[in-house]
Structure formats: C-alpha cells, structure tokens
C-alpha cells in the first residue's frame, strides 16, 4: 500500500473525495489529442493532396523529397530520395518529427498528456493508478530535456510556413497580389505557430530567463518581459495553433481533391 493509502496516513478508502467534474478536462484533452494523432497519422501516410497552386499543407512543408509533386518543393530542392530502404516514403514523414517533437516535449502539452493519457495524475488530488514513479529522471522521459532543440527546429519551420503563407498571395497562375480564403488560412496558421513558439517557456528562458542580473541586461530583460506576457497564454496558443494547422491541412486537402473551391477575394 502506497500513496494516499500508506499506513501512516489518514485512513480514507476513496481515491479522491472531489465532487466536481475533475474527469472532464482530461477526457476532452484525450479526445482532441487522440483525434489529432489519428488524423495526422492518416495524412502523413497518405502522401497526396497536399499541394494545389499556390497552397501547400503545413504537414508537408518544407517538401524535401523527390516524391514531392511539381511546384511543392522548397526552391525546387529535393535532397531526400523518394524511396528509403526500398520503401516509398511520404514527404511528410521526413519532417514531421520536428513539429511533433516540439509539441511532445512542450511544457504545456506534457501537463496535458501526462494527465489525460498517462493519468499521472488524472487530476489534482486524484490518486494515480501507477505503483511506481520516477518522473523525467530516466529514459525515455529524460528526453523531454531535448525541448530546446525542437524549439530551435520549430523556429526554422515557422520561417518556411511563413514563406508558404506569403506565396499564398499569388493566384493559380503564379501572379502576385491576390488573396484567397486559402491565404487567410495559411496566414492564420503560420501566425499562430509564431505565437506558440514565442510564448514557449524555452524561448522565455533563452531570451533572458537564464540571467541572474536583469538590471545588467536591459534589452534582454525587456525581451523576457514581453515573452513572459505571451507565456501566460501559452496553453491557448498551443491549442489554437494545433487547430489552425489541422484546419490548414484539411483546407488544402479539400481544395486539392476538388471538394472545396478556393475562393479568391481579389
């Protein structure tokens, strides 16, 4: 007997005496994240319907494979073979580890999925089902410390996705100065990704959090102050950016398959 049922503690047989709907938040988190994982896995392996001039899905950008359809390659560059070890590799599988790793190691998502998927704990003051716990001190969870590297990679991806959003100001014929619903979708998606990245705890630490003397580094203190304001909304940016990226992919797919028409404002 361990935890709240340890022999020295008050003898209460219930795992929790909470009367509120403590299970609701982890249940919703589980549902949304699980749905996203299923959808993202399907799309990553689909290997099609990710590009329609001038829109590219964020799941497939930058498109670095020889298998990328015409016009979708980053500056026409394709350093990765279409086949790896004899298997046809979807272009998304080459790059998804970076945004996936960034979100998997994100301090907010850690809270969300430790609660919703691993029930460690399912909610505050609700006893978890595990008999042993070592936290993030051993493999594989010690790899959460790689968050900083995924953060840097994420910034590079944000640049690519912003570039994609800029390209979306073209029309089907490649002429500049046009704007469609797809443009708005990609601009919203890339903007929210910037907010998500810049509100990150690692960003906050990197720009100034690691300092002991704020007064000796006024510029970094100012940056830290700005990022600290964004950081209070990191959870919201995490969800909104996830939804925006998923919707951007859905939108591009629907347009690419001909199910939806990309309406041009001008």
């Amino acid at each position, binding site marked *: 007997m361990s935890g709240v049922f340890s022999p020295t503690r*008050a003898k209460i047989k219930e795992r929790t005496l*909470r009367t509120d709907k403590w299970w609701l938040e982890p249940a919703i988190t589980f549902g949304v994240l699980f749905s996203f994982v299923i959808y993202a896995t399907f799309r990553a392996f689909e290997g099609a319907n990710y590009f329609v001039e001038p829109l590219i899905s964020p799941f497939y950008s930058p498109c670095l494979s020889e298998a990328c359809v015409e016009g979708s390659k980053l500056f026409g560059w394709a350093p990765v073979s279409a086949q790896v070890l004899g298997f046809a590799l979807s272009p998304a599988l080459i790059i998804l580890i970076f945004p996936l790793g960034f979100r998997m190691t994100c301090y907010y998502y850690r809270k969300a999925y430790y*609660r919703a998927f691993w029930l460690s704990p399912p909610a505050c003051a609700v006893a978890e089902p595990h008999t042993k716990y070592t936290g993030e001190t051993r493999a594989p969870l010690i790899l959460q410390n790689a968050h900083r590297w995924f953060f840097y990679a994420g910034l590079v991806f944000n640049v690519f996705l912003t570039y994609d959003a800029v390209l979306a100001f073209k029309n089907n014929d490649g002429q500049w100065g046009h704007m469609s619903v797809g443009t708005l979708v990609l601009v919203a998606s890339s903007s929210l990704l910037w907010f998500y990245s810049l509100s990150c705890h690692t960003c906050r*630490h990197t720009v100034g959090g690691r300092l*002991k003397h704020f007064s000796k580094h006024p510029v970094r203190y100012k940056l830290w102050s700005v990022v600290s304001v964004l950081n209070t909304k990191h959870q919201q940016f995490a969800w909104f950016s996830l939804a925006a990226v998923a919707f951007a992919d859905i939108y591009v797919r629907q347009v690419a398959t001909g199910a939806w028409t990309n309406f041009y404002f001008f």
Partner: protein
Amino acid sequence: MTRKLNLRIWRGDSTDGGLKDVVVDVNEGEVVLDVIHRVQATQMGDLAVRWNCKAGKCGSCSMEINGKPRLACMTQVASFDEDETITITPLRAFPIIKDLVTDVSFNYKKAMEIPAYEHPTDLAPGAARMEQVDVERSQEFRKCIECFLCQNTCHVIRDHEENKKSFAGPRFFIRIAELDMHPLDRIKNRKRTAQEEHGLGMCNITKCCTEVCPEHIKITDNAIIPMKERVVDIKYDPARMFSGLLRREKRD
C-alpha cells in the same frame, strides 16, 4: 441569516478513523474554519484542528475540502450549494496525528537540506544594493506562507511515499529558484543539486501545485520550469557543451 449545513468530518488517528456526519448552524459570510470551530464548540469538543490567523496568511489550517487541498479560513461556505454536504479531511500526503491535524515535519527536514543564501565575501553586510527588476522575480516566491498545500497535492509524494526521500517538492523548488535567481548569492551549484539531490527531474509539470497555491504563486511557470531550463543549460544542452560554456559555468 442562519441555516443548517451538513458536514462530514474525518475523525481518527494513525490506528483508525472515518468520516462522521454532523449538522451545524452556519451564518452568512462564514468560512469553513468558522463552522469547524462551531462543531468543536458545540458537538465535538475534542476535535483536533490546526489554525492560527484566520486570514490566509499563516498557512496553518490546510486541509482537504470536498477532496481539494485548501485553506479552511479562505473557503467560503457560500461557495458550495446549500444542500451540498461538505466533506472535510486532513491532508492526505502526510502522516496523520489526530482528526484534521497531520505531521508536516517532512517539509522542515527538506527545508534544512537547502543551503541558505551566501553573501559575497567582498561586500560588507548592509552594503548590498539591488535594482528593483532583480528583486521582483524572487519577491513572488517570498509570498509563500508555507501552508504546504502544494506539497500535499504533488502526486510525486502524495501517490508515492517512497519518493519522499529524494524529492523536495514544489515549495522548496521555489526556494531554490529564488536563491538561484538572486544576483548576489555565492552558491553556484544550485541547478545541479536541484536536479541531482532535490529531485527536480521527478516533476512532470502537471501544475497541481500552482492550482492549489492560495497565494497564487506561479510555482510551475516561474520557478520549476525556469529551474528545469537552467538544468538543461548545464546538463543537456549540446551547444553549450561544445562552446565550452559548461566548463566556464563550473569555474564560476
């Protein structure tokens, strides 16, 4: 206006115990500690409860109210439905002494394991001057009233008694963070000891400590995560290793 309130209060000690039903008068504006005192005065004269200031500043009356770790003196009875039975139990992470009183000495032992601030040797006492921006960050942590609700709700020790040996808990992570962020503190290895001796790596950021803090200290965002990032600086950051910054930090 006086009305009747249904309570369930845990009574017992380390050998046995259980929830006892009681009906008590409650007046408008009263807090849970008020009705506990009324129960003590009128129905259970030997009910043990720890309290002191009745103003949310001493941290004595920590207990669990409807399963949530809270201060009894800061929990309005009006925040519950009128027909709701309020269940009151002692803190469930610490050994029980009697009724609503637990043995929180674990926390004092952990406090003693953290080296105190060390003043620079070349600076006379009283000669230190700090800018407000340097003081502000750690001032938040100084609001701690040591109610130990964060320690109680932290699942690392609440659900795993065996971790108490190696885990200091959120209250002491804010203490370590406060000292590590202090511009004048001479001790340079607080990051390393936080990880290797005080169990910082066991925290999985589920933020329950922040949720229950009656002083609204952002324990996770402003203390634990910054300390984890500082640990990454010295232990897990290949760029800093390659650039020699790790060695330089050790020399400091």
